[in-house]
């Protein structure tokens, strides 16, 4: 690994390591006590800390959503007033995006699974990883203080000049999100270096799991886009504190410039949220179809293509905002180009299922739900990318429904697929398959009931962020509210069987799904240092036609006491990139 020149094959002596079933010692009980958890630099535990945090914020954001939906049952005020409503929808958006979606798959699942999938002992900078988590925590504390000292009512987009004029606590909130951005940046830095430098012997770029490719693309976006959000929010903070006048028209600034800067981050941020979901879905579909993934390179490169083109399309949020017609045309054209790699992914997943051996376990069920809902999200995105139609649909409930189909129908379903898929690896316990499927179906029904009517009322002209609305939309709003409550029931059931699994779940085997991927070739829960050996990779992660024994090769650790080698010579390509 040490010299980049050694990219040719070399002979390595390996032996087979079968993962230990139901190990007594694993990462969860390696260190004990709250303090050990708070100061852990183990990427798996940090992943779980993130998982706990995002679960909390998903709960908070979800409760706020129910509050909104309940208020919208009637056209006029029913139990909260307009100011509260405006604060609630702002918080719902800000919390769901900055505190839940952005860190969900990358920071929570990604932290847990990335080093396992690379055959590494940890991420490249474990202490930085812990620091990211604490930066996230500090950001959330600032935000919570902001909520309790005046709240914020600007919408999660913080558009100037409203955000420079409103009396609410914009300063603290944006500062909290400014801090949060650094957590995202540092996680991105960590992941890119880890993927480049810490791959196990033999894990060449063409054998990387697609989840790793997706996380790689995500990290690149995080690193390139988040700093622009940081400077934008800093300028906004300065605008409020000093009145620097770059964005505020009353002192000579240009509010549309703020929108450019904001969406330069926030559009790619949509891909920060959805691209890692693509990775999870690729893993799940291949595993539960027990079949080699169709079009490996097409899926891997389309993630990178989406990441790149995603940077060129931010202005489609501004078709009616007063940007030049030329800019609108360019942005619309580029927007449609993103549709192509996205479509390629969907077709590749379908082709992977073709002639597979499909096991409709809960993760696969969520992946199917993802495919359906995300496809709707994608098609409605085409609708919104079209200049003439967007003029009518812009800032209506159609947009609201569209991004919920992408973010919730896409990303949250992918997160749930991943959570169910890797749950046994995380906790060494199985959950109730029966209840998992039930809750999946309930969430699916509730989701569609909540958001399909929003497409209709949106195209009929119902604007978003409306506290009062005209009577003709009431039926749609009521359906939507009922759907939201059904969804909530699904999540309550999920919480129930997940907690049951943690407390009384059946022990999981090392590889309950029969996957070929590397994270399943170690015990469940994983050992403290991930593998008792240094894994050696000779096959791709989806080579279901190769025997399982070829996926369990490794070199004995210098410290783990394995003395007897079953000597097997394999040719291993050096993992080092040709630099």
């Amino acid at each position, binding site marked *: 690994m040490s010299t980049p020149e050694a990219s040719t094959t070399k002979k390595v002596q390996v032996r087979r390591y079968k993962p230990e079933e139901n190990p007594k010692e694993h990462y969860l009980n390696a260190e004990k006590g709250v303090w050990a958890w708070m100061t852990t630099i183990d990427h798996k535990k940090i992943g779980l800390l993130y998982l706990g945090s995002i679960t909390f914020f998903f709960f908070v954001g979800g409760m706020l959503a129910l509050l909104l939906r309940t208020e919208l049952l009637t056209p006029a005020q029913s139990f909260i007033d307009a100011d509260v409503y405006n604060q609630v929808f702002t918080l719902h958006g800000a919390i769901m995006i900055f505190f839940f979606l952005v860190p969900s798959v990358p920071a929570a699942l990604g932290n847990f699974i990335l080093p396992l999938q690379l055959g590494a002992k940890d991420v490249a900078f474990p202490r930085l990883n812990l620091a990211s988590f604490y930066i996230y925590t500090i950001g959330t504390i600032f935000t919570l203080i902001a909520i309790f000292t005046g709240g914020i009512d600007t919408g999660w987009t913080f558009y100037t000049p409203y955000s420079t004029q409103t009396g609410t606590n914009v300063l603290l909130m944006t500062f909290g999100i400014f801090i949060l951005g650094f957590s995202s940046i540092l996680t991105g830095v960590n992941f890119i270096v880890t993927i480049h430098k810490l791959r196990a012997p033999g894990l060449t770029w063409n054998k990387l799991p697609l989840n790793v490719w997706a996380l790689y693309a995500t990290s690149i976006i995080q690193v390139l886009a988040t700093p622009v959000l940081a400077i934008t929010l800093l300028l906004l903070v300065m605008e409020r504190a000093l009145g620097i006048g770059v964005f505020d028209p009353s002192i000579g600034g240009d509010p549309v410039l703020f929108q450019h800067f904001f969406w*330069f981050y926030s559009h790619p941020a949509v891909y920060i949220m959805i691209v890692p979901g693509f990775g999870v879905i690729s893993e799940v579909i291949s595993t539960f179809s027990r079949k080699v993934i169709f079009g490996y390179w097409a899926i891997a490169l389309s993630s990178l293509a989406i990441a790149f083109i995603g940077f060129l399309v931010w202005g489609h949020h501004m078709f009616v905002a007063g940007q*030049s017609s030329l*800019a609108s045309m360019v942005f619309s054209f580029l927007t449609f180009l993103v549709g192509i790699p996205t479509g390629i992914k969907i077709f590749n997943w379908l082709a992977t299922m073709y002639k597979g051996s499909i096991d409709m376990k809960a993760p696969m069920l969520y992946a199917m739900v993802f495919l359906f809902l995300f496809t709707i999200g994608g098609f409605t995105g085409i609708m919104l990318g079209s200049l003439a139609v967007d003029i009518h649909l812009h800032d209506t409930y159609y947009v609201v429904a569209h991004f919920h189909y992408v973010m919730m129908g896409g990303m949250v379903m992918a997160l749930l697929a991943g959570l169910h898929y890797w749950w046994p690896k995380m906790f060494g316990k199985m959950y109730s398959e029966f209840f998992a499927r039930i809750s999946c179906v309930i969430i699916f029904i509730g989701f569609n009931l909540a958001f399909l009517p929003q497409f209709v009322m949106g195209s009929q002209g119902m604007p978003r962020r409306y506290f009062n609305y005209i009577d003709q939309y009431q039926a749609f709003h009521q359906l939507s509210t009922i759907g939201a409550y059904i969804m909530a029931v699904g999540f309550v059931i999920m919480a129930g069987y997940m907690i049951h699994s943690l407390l009384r779940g059946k022990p999981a085997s090392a590889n309950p799904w029969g996957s070929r991927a590397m994270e399943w070739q170690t015990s469940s829960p994983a050992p403290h240092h991930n593998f008792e050996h240094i894994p050696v990779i000779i096959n791709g992660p989806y080579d279901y036609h190769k025997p399982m024994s070829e996926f369990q090769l490794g070199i004995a650790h210098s410290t783990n006491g394995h003395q007897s080698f079953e000597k097997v010579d394999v040719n291993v390509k050096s993992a080092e990139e040709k630099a």
Partner: protein
Amino acid sequence: MSGHHISSAKFLWGVAIVLFFLTFLTVAVTWIHIPEPWNVVVAIAIAVVKATIVVAFFMNLWWDSRFNTILLVMSIVFFMILIGITLLDTLFRVDPIPTF
């Protein structure tokens, strides 16, 4: 070993002297008043040369892994995207003027 290039002291001093000279040059060209927009072009060109020298020889990118160069180029490309497409808007706005 790509990461452990050791420059000689003489070389580092040479680089610094070139940079000092270019700094002097960039100030000096303002005395001869090059017309717009070429004054900006010259100033930026000198700055780019200086930055490239710093990056290549002080930051050792010249001897470093090529991926790090790619990273740097990427950051510049994405900055160009940010400013380039934003200018597509800000330079081409045609606002109506009320007739009364």
